[in-house]
């Protein structure tokens, strides 16, 4: 298809003072100051949620976003978004617009808080409730301050909602169409009671919602002060300026890569019905001049359970991929994705429609979309490409009762939540991160153990699992936990079938991970569970692509379907192991300096065998007993590398 670039408009920097003032209603200096100030306002709106939220996912995983947005006549332009969770970035502007327009612009008054949570109207999932506070200046609607924040529970069939098995909107949770939570500053009783009549943990939702409203008050106050000082003309002009500025950043970044069209795809392993169907996200990225188009045609149909995502989520991850590769340092605004068009057929797995299937575990598809676009763009940016991260958030939840009947919950603590990134031209990757689209505080093991009957026995990287490369991908992370009480476990790992930690620029893929359970030993506390094949053989496999005989991860193994059962029950002293996938490598591993390979052997990121196999580097010595006296054999390394290059050229497909 033909994609043409319009004649480029003059750059903002080339505008004369008069042109600038005409376009933005203020001088350059004020526009710069105001654009910064919007950033501060959203930062302040986040501060208290970070320290005063009860929901652990809010406070530890930053699962919320704050924005400032313009009035309807600016089409709700969003000049500032908080640097909280990337998963919300593409959805916020539409969330606010759809919510206010449906509620009716004519119905909003000073002091209102309008809420809504429907993923089909506003992306992400039902637990993410949007709170909108209109801001008035001299009697006119001058903008909005907004918070979208994950609530601990929104009803539905599963406590907390974290399940991939729910199969429709009706099981998923309470859907709130746009409605006031506060009207002219006063609580709207029937909205609060509607919520509390449908959700669990109301005693924790209430303080969180109170905290959110207090933060909206603060944001409103700061925006009002700004309006009083600079006037609505300058404030609105600077909002457009901030958005234009980020659109221009992206346009100029696009201009720097060659024109062309590139394809990429990636896969979600399964949904919650069975493992007969993989869900493929296929993208074709076309770039001409300063614009790009991302076409999702060929993407799989909507899934049968709530692993789906909506079009706004697809928009998020396209934006995030372009930011990572082309414009990494500037903040997100509603202008960021302006030069990028999406073509997205209805009712695919990333453009789901109600009511069947449902949308809950949307973030796993964000990861698949991100992978697909990163793979496509890797061909466009050459050495700027990034290896894949471990691909899944690998969330695990467990629940149970203490002997005295008190319920306990361990949420997103003992799965594979912490895992590796892929490498890139800037160097080896970190191994202990959340995913490319999440950020947050990893809970201290001592805090986990003081809150739930569990002992975390191991949290360490596993050697030889990082994608080999000139720069090495992060290594997979093993987390072993001993459950001291009967426990029910929920798993949400969907990225084993195809290595999500893909290598780039000649780098290798990261190794595959898995999940295992060892049933309780008769003689009490099990101590350490070894990482040996014998130990794996005794385990019950829960997920991964594993050798059917040994249960060890193997590329040629068989897929073990993670949702074979909706949850696993374990007896006291059972051991759970998560091994995350490895991150992708960057660049040819045979080009890695042998000294760096030796240091990896010394530090246990690579074994002596792995050094020879994956890097062609011959190292001898004992990294455990005498780590400083390892030796690289230069001549043997040269020969081995030469041989590996020959083998590679023989087996490489002819072009």
């Amino acid at each position, binding site marked *: 298809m033909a994609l043409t670039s319009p004649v480029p408009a003059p*750059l*903002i*920097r080339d505008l*004369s003072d008069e042109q600038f003032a005409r376009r933005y209603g203020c001088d*350059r200096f004020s526009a*710069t*100051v105001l654009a*910064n100030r919007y950033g*501060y306002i959203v*930062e*302040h709106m986040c*501060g*208290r949620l970070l*320290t*005063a939220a*009860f929901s*652990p996912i809010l*406070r*530890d995983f930053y699962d919320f976003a704050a924005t400032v947005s313009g009035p309807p006549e600016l089409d709700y332009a969003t000049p500032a978004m908080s640097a909280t969770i*990337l998963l919300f970035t593409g959805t916020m502007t539409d969330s606010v617009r759809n919510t206010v327009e449906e509620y009716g612009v004519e119905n909003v008054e000073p002091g209102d808080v309008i809420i809504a949570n429907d993923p089909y109207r506003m992306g992400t999932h039902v637990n993410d409730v949007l709170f909108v506070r209109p801001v008035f200046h001299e009697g006119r609607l001058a903008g909005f301050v907004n918070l979208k924040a994950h609530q601990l529970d929104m009803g539905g069939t599963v406590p907390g909602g974290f399940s991939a098995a729910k199969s429709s909107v009706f099981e998923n949770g309470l859907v709130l169409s746009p409605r006031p939570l506060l009207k002219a500053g006063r609580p709207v009783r029937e909205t609060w009671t509607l919520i509390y009549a449908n959700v669990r943990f109301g005693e*924790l939702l209430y*303080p969180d919602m109170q905290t959110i409203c*207090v933060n909206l008050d*603060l944001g409103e106050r700061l925006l009002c002060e700004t309006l009083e000082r600079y006037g609505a003309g300058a404030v609105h002009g600077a909002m457009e300026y901030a958005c234009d500025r980020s659109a221009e*950043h992206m346009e*100029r970044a696009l201009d720097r890569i060659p024109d062309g069209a590139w394809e990429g795809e990636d896969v979600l392993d399964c949904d919650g019905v069975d493992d007969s169907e993989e869900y493929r996200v296929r993208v074709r990225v076309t770039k001409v001049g300063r614009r790009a188009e991302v076409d999702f045609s060929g993407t799989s149909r909507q899934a049968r359970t709530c692993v789906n995502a909506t079009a706004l989520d697809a928009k998020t991850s396209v934006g995030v991929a372009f930011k*990572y*590769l082309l414009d*990494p*340092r500037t903040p997100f605004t509603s202008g960021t994705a302006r030069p990028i068009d999406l073509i997205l057929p209805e009712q695919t797995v990333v453009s789901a429609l109600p009511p069947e299937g449902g949308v809950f575990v949307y973030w796993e598809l964000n990861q698949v979309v991100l992978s697909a676009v990163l793979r496509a763009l890797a061909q466009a940016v050459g050495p700027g490409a990034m290896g894949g991260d471990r691909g899944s958030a690998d969330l695990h939840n467990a629940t149970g009762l203490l002997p005295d009947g008190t319920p306990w919950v361990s949420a997103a603590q003992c799965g594979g939540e*912490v895992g590796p990134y892929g490498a*890139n031209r*800037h*160097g*080896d*990757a*970190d*191994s*202990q991160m959340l995913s490319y689209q999440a*950020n947050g*505080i990893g809970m*201290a*093991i*001592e*805090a986990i*153990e*003081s809150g739930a009957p569990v*002992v975390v026995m191991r*949290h*360490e990287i596993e050697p030889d699992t990082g994608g080999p490369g000139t720069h090495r991908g*992060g290594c997979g992370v093993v987390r072993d936990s001993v459950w001291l009480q009967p426990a029910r476990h929920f798993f949400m790992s969907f990225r084993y079938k195809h290595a999500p930690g893909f290598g780039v620029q000649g780098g290798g893929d990261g190794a595959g991970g898995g999940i295992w359970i060892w049933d309780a030993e008769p003689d009490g506390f099990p101590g*350490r569970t070894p990482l040996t094949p014998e130990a794996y053989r005794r385990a019950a496999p829960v997920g991964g692509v594993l050798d059917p005989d040994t249960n060890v991860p193997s590329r040629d193994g068989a897929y073990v379907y993670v949702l074979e059962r909706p949850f696993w029950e374990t007896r006291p002293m059972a051991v759970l192991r998560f091994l995350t996938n490895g991150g992708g490598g960057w660049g040819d591993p045979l080009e890695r300096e042998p000294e760096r390979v030796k240091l990896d052997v*010394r*530090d*246990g990121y690579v074994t002596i065998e792995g050094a020879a196999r994956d890097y062609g580097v011959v190292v001898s010595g004992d*990294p455990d*007993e*005498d*780590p*400083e006296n390892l030796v690289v054999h230069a001549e043997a390394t040269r020969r081995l590398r030469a041989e590996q290059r020959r083998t590679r050229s023989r087996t490489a497909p002819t072009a």
Partner: protein
Amino acid sequence: MIGVDVGGTFTDVVEIRDGRVSVTKVPSSQTDPAQAVVEGARRLGVEGVPVFNHASTMGLNAVITRQLPKVAFLTTDGHRDMLDRGRVWRPPDRQTDPSWRRPFGDASKPLVPRYLRRGVPERIAADGSVLMALDETEARRQLAVFGRCNVEGVAICLLNAYVNHAHEERLRELVHEVLGDVPVSISSETSPLAKEYARASTTVIDVVMKLIFDAYSHRIDDELRALGFRGELNFADCAATLLPWREALRKPSRIVFAGPAAGTIASTRLGEAIGDRNLICADVGGTSTDVSLVVDGRPFLNNTFELEHDLVINALSTEVVSVGAGGGSIVGISPSGDVTVGPGSVGSEPGPACYGRGGTLPAVTDACLLMGILAPEGFAAGQVRLDPALARRAFEGLDTPLPVDRRIAFAFRIAVANIAEEIANIAIRHGVDPRDFSLMSYGAAGGMLLPATLDLLHVRRVVIPPHPGLFSALGLLSTDRVYYDSRSAYVLLTPQSAPQIAAVYELMEQRLRARAGVGRDAEDVTLRRSFDGRLVGHSWETPFIEIPSGPITGDTVQELVERFHDVYERRYGNRFPYVPVQGVTYRVELVVRSEKVQYAAGKPERTAQVRPEGMLDLRHYADEPLQAAEYRRESLPVGARVEGPAIIREALSTTFVCPGQVAEVGTVGEISIEAATRAAGGSDRWP
């Protein structure tokens, strides 16, 4: 009294004898930092000096540059990667930046490389019970490896050791058995607080600081004695409180970042002298502005701080936020044509273009010179001649269609606006309203930039203290000796828990008194108790809830719960009285009052009319040049009033009183600047 502030470039030495301040600056030495301290002492003379107070950023610099001794880390088997993980999070503004790496992670620059981080089989549960005994054979084997690698010190942090320290104590014995007399820090002693990562990183830094400071402090003590010094040698910590140097060496993680907090203490002390208890303190230097708060006469404290992103240290510290804007901040042009200032800096070498040391990038100092705020002669006590032609050429070199005049004007205004926004930002984050605060403005570049923020910030006034260029070193003579200790225990606050809490405090208090050598009825000693608590369900604590004096009874605990809710409401705007409160960390501070700098009040002279030394053209401030009066600070008597625009010069600093502002010299020599509109009606001052 002598205060010594060891900085990267200069070691500032300040002496107060009979109320008179004398000063010397000695070039710092990277290879032998003690030498500069001793040289400073020699110049001013230490005989008969009662106290010699020392602050240094040496520890911080060693960590940031990774010029570290070789230390090893021993932990519970399976957990050696806790130091690579930190608390996992990335800086929020670097989330899509592929070049970001955790600065202390294995993919970047770890403090301890992975092969020297090793696990020992053992396991203590969250309640302190032993799940697995310590495997001493394996511990000895790992220690032998450390021996083979010639490690100089060992940090030990085992999981849940904050509840049960037995295995850590035993491991320390084994270290000495296998490796001999090397420094060892164990987490249950260094920082017995919950959450393993912060405790582990504090313990690693602690043993590193032992290695860095041990020989250094002995050397200084010896040489001072040789010069005839018979007083007390004290080290300042991260809260700019003092402790005897031998005490400091017991837990030197506490002194890793001494220096910036001293300015806050100096402000507090000056604030007392002029009756101002609410201060925003801003130290404007070459590369950055350090901002801190004094609320109701007390600096704003934190219970942890970070040496770099997420490199956490558990120690009481004055909260000092560093903003990337100072005299050396680089003026640039963004792709969309904005004039930008910072966060990059020209540093001290080559420095701003006008220094003539080869710098070609314009900096804020260049803008101030071209405006006329700075004079070419007399900068930094006459040590540097500033060249306006070079400054102008640097601005001409910027890639923008804006005329040069506008570039200079914007550079100054953006620099001022950035600092103002950051200060407002810090104030809001702490829930304080700048309108109730005075802005204490010091550091060499404070006076030339901060008065211009008055009108953006709405602070009550800007105060330029006497000796603004050496104000931080004065802070070392404005502070007390403080011994403190803290420990963690998750306890639900109910009247029944009173005995448990009382026992925790009793034990800490006894030990502190023994260490400080003071009895129960010692004069000049105050005991401060506080705790960090949380609502049940929270994972973050609300720190520093004060505990009333006297025995801790069931009634006290009720009172603590109330106080918790009060503090929580004040900080977060909500009150949840129906949610139970859990105590997490308990803290005792033993304050031994020390001799401090006295600000002598002068009498206002009746003839407060002062005549300027001359007039100059103030350019690039308004559309047309303005006539500004020029004064020498030392010739302004108490009570003198100066109307802006005016420039007040002194040896190490320059104050720019903007049009529409009035400066008045206060009783202890401070310059107080307010908007003229406060006194008389006036118009908006920005042109």
